[in-house]
């Protein structure tokens, strides 16, 4: 959403409407994913399912600061980003169900949500790789003299592999319009951040590239939105890339299989008391931005939408068998015998 005339200083110039829309997105992500979990348990969804629960404020705060023309590319924990970008939840759930109506025709599944018509270039499941593709998108934008930026999402654990650093160097050398958003949820799968990286304040890693960077409370959608606005302005004006670190926490396991031995139940409960969705809800109500009734209505609508997506997915036809012989190439050439 674009920023409109100031309403409240505390809300970064966002109008009540915009704030409520942010809350709506956060709720929709949450409820959509609760459905996912349920559908996974009922074996409607297979493979790896990585939930975003607890991190909603990051997607909504960052993507909210982009224009629709701006580009997004993300990793396998991609439901939140897809919904915040406004992808059709029916197509998303259908994708998770492996149906023909899915956003990737049922070929990608949870880790590979996509909608190119919305400049959402997909979720990628190999740690780090898509950061370099983001640089490629940034290179194209620059060569094509386009005013857009590209935002790329990844986790704290994804800042130790070589591809992250290559991306930092390439983007800074080329002053590419790339916003790197690291969602630091304190774990890489089950490996605590102190075990996997020597500098735990991820934003500090930008120093090796003289890159602009900033750390923000990723559980606060407004702070995240403001930090992103600054980053986007910087990148869009041709000054180069920015590394944004949003500190957050994931409430669910890494994937649906996770037994979470690496952290205590107490730790998770502790964080749950600061649930970004609850905190934001209370804040908007306390500040008179939204009424309790509005909140409830939003929550009910989200439930309806999410359930609708399940029904849609359920009733959709299975993935098209044409994909057994088509689609590997845009320009197929048969081998000849």
């Amino acid at each position, binding site marked *: 959403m674009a920023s409109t005339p100031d309403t409240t200083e505390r809300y970064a110039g966002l109008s009540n409407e915009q704030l409520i829309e942010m809350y709506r997105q956060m709720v929709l992500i949450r409820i959509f994913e609760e459905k996912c979990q349920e559908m996974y348990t009922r074996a409607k969804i297979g493979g790896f399912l990585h939930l975003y629960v607890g991190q909603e404020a990051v997607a909504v705060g960052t993507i909210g600061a982009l224009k629709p023309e701006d580009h997004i590319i993300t990793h396998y924990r991609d439901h939140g980003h897809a919904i915040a970008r406004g992808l059709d939840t029916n197509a998303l759930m259908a994708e998770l169900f492996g149906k023909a109506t899915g956003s990737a025709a049922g*070929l990608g599944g949870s*880790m590979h949500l996509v909608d190119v018509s919305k400049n959402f270039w997909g979720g990628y499941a190999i740690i780090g790789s898509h950061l370099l593709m983001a640089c490629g998108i940034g290179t194209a934008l620059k060569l094509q003299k386009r005013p857009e930026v590209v935002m790329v999402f990844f986790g704290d654990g994804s800042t130790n592999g070589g591809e992250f650093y290559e991306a930092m160097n390439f983007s800074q050398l080329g002053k590419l319009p790339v916003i790197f958003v690291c969602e630091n949820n304190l774990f890489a799968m089950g490996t605590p951040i102190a075990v996997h990286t020597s500098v735990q304040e991820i934003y500090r890693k930008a120093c090796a590239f003289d890159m602009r960077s900033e750390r923000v409370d990723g559980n606060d959608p407004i702070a995240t939105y403001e930090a992103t606005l600054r980053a986007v302005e910087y990148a869009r004006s041709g000054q180069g890339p920015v590394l944004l670190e949003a500190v957050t926490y994931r409430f669910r396991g890494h994937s649906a299989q996770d037994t979470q031995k690496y952290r205590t139940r107490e730790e998770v409960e502790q964080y749950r008391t600061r649930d970004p969705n609850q905190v934001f809800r209370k804040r908007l109500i306390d500040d008179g931005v939204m009424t309790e009734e509005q909140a409830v209505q939003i929550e009910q609508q989200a439930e309806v939408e999410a359930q609708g997506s399940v029904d849609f997915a359920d009733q959709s036809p299975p993935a098209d068998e044409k994909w057994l012989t088509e689609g590997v190439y845009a320009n197929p050439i048969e081998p000849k015998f």
Partner: protein
Amino acid sequence: MAVMTVREALRSELREQLKDDRVFIIGEDIGYYGSTYGVTAGFLEEYGTEKIRDAPIAEAGIIGIGIGAAMLGMRPICEIMSVNFSLLAFDQIINHAAKLHYMFGGQITCPMVLRTTNGWRNLSATHSQSFDPMFAYVPGLKVVAPATPADMKALFKASMEDPDPVIFIEHTLMYGVKGEIPDEPYEVKIGESRVAREGKDLTIVTYSRPVHLCMEVAERLSKQEGIECAIIDLRTIRPMDMSKALESFRTTGRAVVVTEEWESHGVQAEIAARLYEHAFDYLDAPIERVGFREIPFPYATNLEDQVVVTPARIEAAIRKVLA
């Protein structure tokens, strides 16, 4: 004879190996997380952080550290969670682990074991691949892919005792497979195939998980129709022991090659080519190959079911060759 799963067999051999001061395991989420497929679950608590080394997500690093430590006399076990991620370490594996001994005139050895997994099931295109033929192509590597709990245990031991770098390929869909493990000490050597089933009508050459699928089909055909398929489990794909496969093929004159990999340019091409070359005078019919359909893996079950190797496809190939 104890009955164990593949997972248990591996765990028991890993424990044996960890008694050696030179041995440590390095890999992603092997410790705190408790191991993606449960093979090293509980090991961190038992052996501590020096021996169970949780690594950052940096596959090249994991292998590079293994190589360097091996050069200095350690016996590292490097775990790459999924073979799909091993592409990030291909430089370390192929340009270095495979080369050190030769390139430096025999002065350096690299006794490293790289454990990794093949596997699939609704994991889509980047998480379902097999790179067996790529490893098998490289002189300097040894590549082992056992099918049974007993072979897992024994070949893991053999890999650890070997002074050369070994790629040890497990399979995510095989950890629960059960089998008997001899009570007495027993040995399986790297580079020795096995007759998994005798048979006079047709020779199936395979290894790793498809061995079980082939057994299922062969038993059924035997019971129902008296067709007797020999099954040769190669166990090691570099170096490859074709002697048992050839011996059988020279009798049957008919063969099916079954492997989990895309059907062109795979290990199956090499197997087929060698069967033709070395049993040229015994050919009764063209050899059939069964592998993955040559497309990236789709997520949807209805499609994936038609990409993978199934008993039905194996049976169809057998019937075609026997026709």
